[in-house]
């Protein structure tokens, strides 16, 4: 190749790059929206604020926008992603550290487009991909609700993203690749509740954010893979479609009870990240929770459990023989609550084999609940389990898990348990 040829190529490459950069900059650029005086909370209609409260509950906003022991909506909850940790922002109306200076237009743009008031792109850990389709009415209500919260002056910790992902304009590229706005259409053949449940579940409640698998760049998989099970905070969110591993049907009534109380007597208690979802749904409009239950019961209508109630196996002798250590550990640490005759069982709390974790295709939830235990999800009165992370080592937890699966499980045999326990410990930290 001639020298001028090389030069030409370099020049055109540089030019192409420049064009790309410029085009990208144009795509990525979002103007800042001017600040406003914090609106007087009294200007918002109480009915609108109440509607907004319900929207916030359905959206589970507080889970990410409140730190442990912190004030609601003041931010600070660490969302762990493979690319680093993102801290939920302060969305109280404090003008300096929250969103008090945001106009409703700025708020709307953030919710719909994932762009902050100052024009910076927001990480999709904030699920604007779902909020894009929230109705105008719901957005105004949510704005009214947030603007009437007690203002809390609080700056959450800085995000710790691996380079170069701290460079926010790159997010425009992610949006280009994965951000599709597909409006939520109404299906007239389905009931009003179903349509309402679909709207809430696909937008505000952003259920797929946990319950769908994600791709390499953390984008949610769609289509046939939607609701096929995903991951959240070191926990597994099982499929809530035809692949639901539950051993008892998720009827509308059961699902509604589960979402509103954190407990289904035919399944188990809400644990891990699902706990706070039920905490919020317990405080949302009952009709909306029923609508959600209607829609997701429909999504699981073809799951095996919907067709027949599998017998609950109890291979106690076999499990003890195969996993004698697990059996002994279970006897001393678990049986006091989980064996028939235990007070909890006599009182009608669900039996261990009814819990979905033992039937999932991976052991993660079973492991996590042993390590972390369970706090009553909805109110101080409710299912509780102590954490065993400090009491048992990885091998011991894996032995209990192996024993339990051998005794009650219905899914594929789990392997490499000890490694998974170590991983769960780390991811859940």
């Amino acid at each position: 190749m001639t020298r001028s040829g090389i030069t030409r190529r370099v020049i055109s490459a540089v030019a192409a790059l420049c064009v790309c950069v410029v085009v990208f900059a144009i795509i990525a650029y979002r103007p800042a929206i001017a600040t406003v005086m914090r609106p007087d909370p009294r200007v918002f209609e109480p009915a609108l604020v109440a509607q907004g409260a319900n929207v916030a509950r359905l959206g589970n906003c507080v889970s990410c926008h409140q730190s442990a022991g912190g004030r609601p909506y003041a931010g600070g909850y660490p969302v762990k992603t493979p690319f680093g940790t993102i801290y939920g922002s302060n969305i109280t109306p404090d003008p300096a550290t929250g969103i008090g200076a945001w106009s409703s237009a700025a708020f709307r743009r953030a919710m719909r487009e994932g762009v902050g008031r100052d024009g910076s792109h927001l990480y999709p850990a904030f699920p604007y991909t779902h909020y894009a389709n929230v109705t105008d009415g719901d957005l105004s209500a949510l704005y009214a609700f947030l603007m009437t919260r007690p203002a809390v002056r609080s700056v959450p910790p800085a995000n710790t993203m691996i380079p170069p992902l701290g460079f926010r304009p790159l997010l425009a590229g992610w949006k280009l690749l994965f951000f599709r706005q597909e409006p939520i259409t109404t299906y007239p053949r389905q009931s009003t509740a179903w349509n309402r449940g679909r709207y809430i579940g696909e937008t505000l409640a952003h259920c797929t954010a946990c319950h769908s698998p994600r791709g390499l760049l953390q984008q949610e998989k769609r289509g046939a893979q939607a609701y096929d099970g995903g991951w959240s905070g070191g926990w597994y969110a099982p499929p809530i479609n035809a692949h639901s591993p539950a051993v008892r049907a998720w009827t509308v009534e059961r699902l509604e009870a589960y979402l509103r109380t954190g407990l289904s007597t035919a399944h188990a208690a809400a644990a891990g990240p699902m706990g706070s979802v039920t905490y919020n749904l317990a405080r949302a409009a009952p009709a909306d929770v029923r609508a959600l239950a209607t829609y997701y019961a429909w999504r699981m209508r073809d799951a095996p459990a919907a067709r027949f109630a599998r017998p609950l196996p109890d291979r106690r002798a076999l499990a003890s023989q195969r996993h004698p250590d697990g059996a002994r550990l279970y006897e001393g640490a678990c049986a006091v609550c989980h064996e028939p005759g235990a007070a909890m069982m006599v009182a009608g709390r669900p039996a261990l084999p009814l819990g979905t974790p033992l039937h999932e295709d991976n052991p993660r939830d079973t492991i996590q609940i042993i390590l972390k235990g369970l706090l009553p999800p909805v109110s101080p009165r409710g299912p509780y389990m102590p954490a065993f992370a400090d009491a048992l080592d990885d091998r011991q937890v894996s032995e209990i898990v192996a024993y339990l699966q051998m005794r009650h499980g219905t899914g594929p045999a789990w392997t490499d348990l000890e490694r998974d326990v170590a991983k769960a410990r780390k991811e859940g930290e």
Partner: protein
Amino acid sequence: MSGEASRRDVLGGLLVAFSLAPAAALAQTGGGEGSGGPPTIAPDLPGTLAKFPDLDAWIRIAPDGRVTVFTGKVELGTGVKTAMAQLAADELDVAIERIDLITADTGLTPNEGVTAGSQTLEQSGTAIANAAANVRLLLAEAAATQWSVPVTSLFTRDGAVLDGQGKRATYAELAASTSLAVRARADVPRKRRAARRLIGRAIPRVDLPAKLTGLPSYVHDMRLPGMMHARVLRGPSSGTQLTPDIAALRRQPGVARVVQAGRFAAIVGPREWPLEQALRIASRARWVRDPAVPTLPPMPAGLLTMRRESQVIDNRRDDPGARGVQRLSARYDRPYLMHGAIGPSCAVALFAEDRLTVWTHSQGVEPLRQAIAELLAIPADRVRCVHREGAGCYGHNGADDVAGDAALIARAMPGVPVRLQWSREQEHGWEPLGPAMLAQVDATLDASGRIVDWRHQVWSNTHSTRPVAAGDLLAGAEIIPPFKPTPPKPIPQPNGGGDRNAIPLYRFPNQTIVSHFLPDMPVRVSALRGLGAHLNIFALESFMDELATAAGRDPVAFRLAHLDDPRATAVIRRAAARFGWARYRATPNRGRGFAFARYKNHGAYCAVALDVEHIPDEGRLIVHRAVAAVDSGEAVNPDGIRNQVEGGIVQSLSWTAFEAAGHDGTRRTDYDWSTYPILRFADVPRSVTVEVVDRPGTPFLGTGECAQGPTAAALANALASATGKRLRSMPLTGRLPTQA
């Protein structure tokens, strides 16, 4: 302290008080709950000395100089052991380390009935202090006779009588020739304040070093040679009956014995863990509802529909013509509450040579002894009940029942000590609950904003089913033929049961107080710390705030305007000042609340101020500050008083804000701390301050229960100020708006 100073104090004290009537000897004695025991035979003597006037019933001195003090009262975690030792050591002039305290033992100590109602120091403390003063004088007199000098020329120090010129006789020497089996004299003075070394000081608790280092301190910790463990078999809750498979249980490894008597059944074995496993297997058995237990109507309205015996307990018409301009009414209620001791009930029993010994954490060893004797059909003098500490019970929980259970098992296994511990689930399901209650208050304000008429009505079951007979123990109703429980009856004023503190201390020209006693008990209930005072003060003091608001007055000023008791006003002013009531500025969702009461109208005065924030969106509350002032009369141990009031505030916050026992109409539904949650560290106040107003020379006033009512009302008042919403039903947090 120099010998001179002590000499002057002691002699002066003796001389002065001989001529004057000793004020401190006029201690109060209570009645009703917390009293009991034999009749008064020496009415001129203070405290329980009136019932046991002989000095050696209370104090004995050994040849090595150690002093044994006997009390029929028990240590419930309130520090009374320390207070008693302080009283005895100070009045006797011996080192506190030389005092050995023997608490409630039917074989050794005076029968002082039940330890309850915050009357331990009023009754037993007064007796011990006066007995000690008597003994000291008696020994000094013995020395005076020996040395042929007037007793007023002698003084005492550190367990010896001295003449100041070099003569010295130890108490042990003097006691060898002096009988303490003599009647106490009514005219013996107590030590003067300036001469005291221990009374009035924050002496560290004598029992804590052992408890904090793991030395056996509780009945749960007893391990006797050859002891067997036992577990009792019962249905999931009071009001149910279990039909366990006894034959299968006998085959269960680790079960050495199944003891059965009628429907009563228990398993016995050498180790605890196999018994726990067997208990779980036994619990798989079928259980049925006890047909004898009536169903529970929906609460609290159901209380109004129950059969009742109504009584006007106070009626005053000082100014019948007073003109009211504004009339307010309100209803307040509380649910059934659990005692919820952290350690489940436990007892150890040994039946040997036709005699039964029971180690128990019951609050009333004497009545328990009667009940157990009847249960076993043996004479009471063959039964000995010895108190051993348990976990803080705060009233009549499973302690007596488990002792009855253990007695039945032990009788079946002569010679073998049996330790029976209830499971957590049994404690939650079977302990008698604190009664649900409802109060209605109506009042009229005149044009100047003064209350001119007041009407308080309260509906409640009994507040004491403490055992006096076999039928009052769970096992008594399970054996065949079963015993009948003692019919409940109201506890009369001035202590009161359900109507405790229903009569206001305020001066209202016209008032009517009505107590509606509900004899039928769909839920087994009994004494819980403060009895009716918790709800009555909650109602009274919440309503005072509602009236203050209606009258446009500051709540503290409004209270002071209706009081004429200087000690009450002093306590209120002290709490308000320390809290900074006048300076307080409310911020959004945050407010202050005040409440006051004199417990039982004759116990300690207590005022509580709270600074509380409500977190909308969560319905959660943060108690930023709690400030209390308390007047317990003469403060024997100010730190003990502070400890009681701090604990009372925190416990009452738990009751009032969070707690309610579950019931499905036919039976109780709580079986552990997840179904009956209590306050955890996340919800305790950021700070609690207790000011003790000391009143030396005045009688001891019961303190243990004085904070429960004022704290409850102060919380409701603070929440009303923080949220604008008046909550009148407990638990309060369940009713907080989740959205502002």
